[in-house]
């Protein structure tokens, strides 16, 4: 734990602002769209409104605390390459989830795994392709064939 740096304080302030606005939406929607009821018979809006007010106050507290110079946020030294590495894996993962219903589990999984290896290592292409396919088939064999868990088949109708 160490004294927070500028971007961490700004980040927390931003989270506070987002929370503040989301809590307003929560309260507004509940009060407009759901029955509030009475004290004797509280309606569906009562609890969300109470929670929304709590969230609103907590968000205000986050914003207020982010202005304090002695705010404790763990200092993690990251290089640009660390952040890029995590970002690339995240982008590949989002692409994987998007393509899963189209390509099916086996194909999408093989491509995702190969893509991550291609991005983060300097392995030969054939080894990357083999690793991708082996992983996809292993996951399919274990979870779909053995445990019987349902996974998307895709347009090709398998996997």
């Amino acid at each position, binding site marked *: 734990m160490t004294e927070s740096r500028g971007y961490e304080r700004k980040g927390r302030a931003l989270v506070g602002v987002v929370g503040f606005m989301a809590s307003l939406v929560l309260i507004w929607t509940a009060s407009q769209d759901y029955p509030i009821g009475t*004290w004797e018979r509280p309606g569906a809006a009562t609890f969300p409104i109470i929670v929304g007010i709590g969230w609103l106050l*907590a968000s205000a507290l986050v914003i207020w605390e982010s202005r304090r110079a002695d705010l404790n946020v763990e200092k993690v030294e990251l290089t640009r390459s660390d952040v890029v*590495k995590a970002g690339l894996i995240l982008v590949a993962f989002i692409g994987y989830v998007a393509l899963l219903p189209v390509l099916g589990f086996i194909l999408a999984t093989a491509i995702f795994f190969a893509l991550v290896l291609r991005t983060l290592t300097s392995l030969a292409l054939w080894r990357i392709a083999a690793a991708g396919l082996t992983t996809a088939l292993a996951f399919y064999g274990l979870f779909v064939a053995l445990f019987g868990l349902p996974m998307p088949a895709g347009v090709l109708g398998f996997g």
Partner: protein
Amino acid sequence: MGAIEGLLYGMSVMAQPENILAALAGVLIGTAIGVLPGLGPLAAAALILPITYTMSPTVAVIAIASIYAGSMYGGSTTSVLLKIPGETASIITTIDGHKMAQQGRAGVALSIMAIGSMVAALISVVFVALLSPSLSRMALNFGAPEFFALTAGGLLALARVTGFGSLASALFPLFVGLSLSTIGQEALSGVFRYTFGVPDLAAGLDLTAIFVGFFGLAEVLLMVEAMRGYKRPPRVPMRSLIPTRTDLKRSLAPWGRGTLIGFFFGLLPGPAGTMASFTSYKVEKTVSRYRREIGSGAIEGVAGPEASNNAAATSALIPVLTLGLPFSATYALMLAALVVQGINPGPLLITDHPEIFWGLIVALLLGNVMLLVLNLPLVGVWILALRIPVYVLAPLILLFAVVGVFSSRNSHFDLWVLIVAGIAGALMMRLGFDMAPLALGFILGPIIEQQMRTSLVLSRGDVGVFVESPISKVIWAVVAIVLVAEPLIGRLARRRGTASVLSGTDVPR
């Protein structure tokens, strides 16, 4: 059923091969995950949660509890060998444990840690078995206002004592969790809330997607960012694992004190294992005959904290099993595994599902023995887990998350929830928010709402009902004391420089 009969019944439940297998697999998987820096008991339990849906409820709770015990042990192993705690409860072990490793006594530190953990867990399990049935009977007298006080007050107290010293860091995630729990069809009147015309939201946000996202995926993203390989761990020959008679003699009192401290902290809301291990260390530094050596590789600095965090992990089962109230995020996941399978945790669990309660008690006894017998000889194997390259480990965990979340409800929408929760979780963790209250808020939100509304209906709108009964009064008084006392104790601790013991420790998020 009395404690002795119950334990015998639990043994017959544990004699089922699938239960033994679940305990064995749980401690092994838990240890492997616990060894990996950045992945702690919560991430381990979150990632395994979807798989438990295919198991019977008894097997599911045994698997999760064993994973919890295993990952606590794995986290402590890296504390000693590499000065890298696998989870926050092991932070304090790095101080003397790693000093012992540098002095060539890593094997002794690991043995004392494992034996102490087992002794503490076994004693605590016996206390849990003895106390739970009577507490459960007492809890049957609780009405809606008392349960409301326990759940809502417990969450407030939790938010006060966690949050890394900042109230907002715990309160904000708590209200995010509570807010997320209001999405979907409301149970009492059937109104659809915050679905915005999206049919996938009608049944609410999937618990698996939320947990695996906020804890599993978020932890993986942070692991990818920060993991750049670690120094080579020291070799631990089998012979070096045998402690001397002096080591054992010096460990006895710290084990005893640690067990008592841990058992007490486990009953309270908050990061019980962490608070227990820090308190135990402080107590050893104050009362031990060898207090001057603590901090420079003394066995007492390992024995006490390790016994206390394991005792806390075990006694934390009491509120879960007797009241259905998890005061830790990992046990909230265990509760979730039961709820998904249609089991209502609470005071009636012991009478309605004795196989789950007593099976779990005996599984914990067995699991801790397994940890000692299997893990010490396998310490070299666990260290190998640290050598798995992150580019292999990360995508494998992500694939595991996808399989688990998708198969939970057969819903592609849940995978998008997983991604959003993962990104939000990683950002919030990076910015110093404590995510445990989010998990508890999400699980306890519907219970709090139901108890609040039932209380008001029964009292015809009299809000005084929440503080009317003696039980409610006591609970709210305890909550008030925690809310007021915590900042004072924190200020005192900061003035005395307690935080300085952490200097130089590579603490994972």
